[in-house]
C-alpha cells in the first residue's frame, strides 16, 4: 500500500472543483481519463481533460425508443442516467485488430498488437460496475482467458458515481445492481447538492484509489455527509423507471419457448441489433481474416449480434432464420441461460436496450407479458432456443 494512501473504506468530502483536480491527478499518473461529455445531443463517454468537459447542468429524459437531453436547474456534473455508450467500448472494443501478418517471399512475420493503454473511467454507475464484473467473468475466467481484455482491465481505474437520478428505463433495483455502487471501484462519488452546497462524498474502494484521493484537498466525512449521500441513492431507488420481476424468471423463460409473445415481438422487432450493441454485458464477436493486395493480412475481431443471420450460420445454413428465434435467443440467454452459464443474470438493469431500440421494445414488458399468461399455451419444451 502506498505510504501516503488512505485505506479502503475511508470516506471524505471534496468540493466540485476537486473533480478537476482528480482528472489532473489521474492524467499525471499516466491514465487516459474517460468520462461523460455532451455530444450530438447525448451524454457519451470520451476523453475528458478537465472539469469544463463534463456535462454540468445537463440531464436526460429516456423512454422506450426515445432519448433527449435537457437543462437541469442546478449545475450537477453527474445529473443524468446512463447514455448510449457503455464502458464496453473501451474494455471490449467494437473493432479490435488481434494481429497483422506480412509476407515477404516465403517468410511470414506476425506483428503483434500493442495493448498498453491505461484507462481511468470517471462516472461509472453501479449497474455499469456490475456489467464490467459480468464481462470479467466471461473474458477472464475459465481455461482460455482473453489476455488483451485482462490487460486492459487490470490497467483500469474505476471512479464510480452513485446515481442521483434514475433514468426512465432504469431497473437496477430489480436486478440488485444499484443505484449504489457496492464494490469493484477504486473511488466512489456521491454528488451532494443542496442550496449553495455542491460537494461530493468520496469513498475509497482500493489502495490505488486511496493513493489518488490522498493527493486531493478534502475533509473527513461527517455523519451528516454520509446520511446525505444515503438519502441520494435512496431517493433514486424509489424513482426507477422500470421493474422486472426476477423471481422464477429463468424457469419461466426456459419453460416457454413457444409462447405466442415471441411471435408478437417478432412483428415489432427489426432485428437491427441495436439492443445487443448497446448492452454493456453482450460480448459476442465475429472474427474476420482479411488479406490486402500488398502482402499483408490481419485478423480483426468485431462485435457481433445474435440478431444477425450470419451469427447462427453453420454448415448448411443459419439456425435462426426468423426474427422470432433471434429475439428469443437474445432474451432467454440474457435473463435465463446466462445464469446456467456464468452464475449470474446477463442483465444489470441499465435500460439501454429499451431506450436505444429504434422501435422501443422493452425487455421488462416482454418478460411481464410472458409471465402474465404463461401456462395457457404450453406444450412443454426444454427452453433451448
Amino acid at each position, binding site marked *: 500500500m502506498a505510504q501516503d494512501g488512505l485505506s479502503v473504506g475511508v470516506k471524505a468530502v471534496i468540493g466540485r472543483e476537486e473533480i478537476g483536480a482528480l482528472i489532473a491527478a489521474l492524467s499525471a499518473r499516466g491514465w487516459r481519463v474517460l468520462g461523460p461529455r455532451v*455530444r450530438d445531443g447525448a451524454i457519451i463517454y470520451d476523453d475528458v481533460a478537465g472539469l469544463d468537459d463534463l456535462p454540468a447542468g445537463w440531464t436526460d429524459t429516456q423512454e422506450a425508443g426515445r432519448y433527449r437531453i435537457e437543462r437541469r436547474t442546478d449545475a450537477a456534473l453527474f445529473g443524468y442516467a446512463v447514455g448510449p455508450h457503455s464502458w464496453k467500448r473501451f474494455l471490449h472494443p467494437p473493432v479490435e485488430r488481434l494481429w497483422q501478418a506480412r509476407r515477404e517471399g516465403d517468410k511470414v512475420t506476425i506483428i503483434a498488437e500493442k495493448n498498453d493503454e491505461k484507462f481511468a473511467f470517471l462516472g461509472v454507475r453501479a449497474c455499469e460496475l456490475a456489467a464490467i464484473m459480468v464481462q470479467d467473468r466471461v473474458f477472464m475466467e475459465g481455461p482460455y482467458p482473453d489476455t488483451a481484455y485482462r490487460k486492459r482491465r487490470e490497467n483500469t481505474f474505476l471512479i464510480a458515481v452513485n446515481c442521483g437520478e434514475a433514468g426512465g428505463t432504469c431497473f437496477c433495483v430489480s436486478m440488485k445492481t444499484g443505484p449504489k455502487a457496492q464494490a469493484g471501484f477504486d473511488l466512489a462519488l456521491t454528488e451532494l447538492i443542496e442550496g449553495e452546497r455542491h460537494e461530493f462524498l468520496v469513498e475509497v474502494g482500493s489502495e490505488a484509489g486511496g493513493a489518488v484521493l490522498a493527493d486531493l484537498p478534502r475533509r473527513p466525512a461527517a455523519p451528516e455527509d454520509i446520511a446525505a449521500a444515503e438519502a441520494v441513492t435512496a431517493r433514486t431507488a424509489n424513482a426507477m423507471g422500470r421493474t422486472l420481476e426476477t423471481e422464477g424468471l429463468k424457469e419461466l423463460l426456459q419453460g416457454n419457448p413457444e409462447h405466442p409473445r415471441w411471435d408478437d415481438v417478432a412483428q415489432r422487432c427489426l432485428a437491427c441489433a441495436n439492443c445487443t450493441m448497446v448492452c454493456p454485458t453482450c460480448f459476442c464477436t465475429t472474427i474476420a481474416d482479411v488479406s490486402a493486395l500488398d502482402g499483408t493480412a490481419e485478423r480483426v475481431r468485431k462485435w457481433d449480434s445474435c440478431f444477425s443471420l450470419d451469427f447462427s450460420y453453420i454448415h448448411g445454413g443459419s439456425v435462426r432464420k426468423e426474427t422470432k428465434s433471434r429475439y428469443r435467443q437474445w432474451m432467454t440467454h440474457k435473463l435465463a441461460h446466462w445464469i446456467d452459464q456464468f452464475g449470474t443474470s446477463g442483465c444489470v438493469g441499465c435500460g439501454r436496450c429499451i431506450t436505444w431500440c429504434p422501435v422501443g421494445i422493452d425487455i421488462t414488458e416482454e418478460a411481464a407479458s410472458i409471465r402474465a399468461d404463461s401456462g395457457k399455451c404450453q406444450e412443454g419444451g426444454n427452453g433451448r432456443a
Partner: protein
Amino acid sequence: MAGKKRLAVWKFASCDGCQLSLLDCEDELLAVAEAVEIAYFPEASSRMAKGPYDLSLVEGSITTEHDALRIRKVRRQSKFLVTIGACATAGGIQSLRNFADVAEFVAAVYASPHYIKTLATSTPISDHVKVDFELRGCPINKTQLLELLSAFLAGRKPVISADSVCTECKQRGNICVMVQGIPCLGPVTHAGCGALCPACRRGCYGCFGPTENPNTAALAAEWQKLGAAPRDIRRAFRTFNAAAPAFRTESEAHGE
C-alpha cells in the same frame, strides 16, 4: 501480363459513379493494376482487350433490349460476375419508371421521343443472368471494392457484412438519430457505408438496399409515430433501391 487474372468493367444504365469508385482508389489503384490485368475498362483506358475475363464488374441496370442481350454476352465471357452498386443489384433510381408509364417520361423529356427505344422497366442484372456476388451501395464503398478484389485474388470469400447499418452506427459510436426523433432507414438497410449519414446526424437513406430480413412494416409504423406522412414513407423506400422487393412492397403500402 501472363498469369495475371483478367479484369473487365462493364457499364449498363448507370451514372458511372461506381466505376469511378475504382478509379477513386488512388493510393491502392497501382496495387490493383499490378495485381490484375485490367483488360477491359473503357471508362479508364482506350485499350479494350477481348475476353474471356476472370472477373467482370458490372455497373448499371437493364433498361433496353440491347442491354438485355449484351449482359448475356458479358456473362458468357466472364468466369466470375460481380454487380457493383444499387443499379446493377436492384435496378437503381431509374427503376422509378417501374411504378410509372415510361412513355410519358420519354414524351416529357425528349424533343423527338420516337428516337428513344427503351424497356418499360429497369431491372437488376440478376433478373437476367447468374450473378456470383453483389456489391451494394449508391455508390459502392471503395473499401468494400478493394476487399472484393483482394478476396477474389486470394481465392477466399469477401468479408462483407450483411448486417444492418445500425451495427456500423454502433461500431462507430454514433448516437442513434432515430431515438432522438429523426426517421432513419438504417435498421432495414444493408451495411456497407460505415453509417455515413447518421454520423452526420441525418437519417439513413437506404443506399445499400434492404437487409436480409427487413421488417419494413414495423419501421414504417415507427416513422409514423415520429411524424412522417405516408408520402414521406413511400418516397423514402423509393430512392436508390426502389425496385428491391422489400422496399418496393413497403412503398406500395403508403399513399401519396
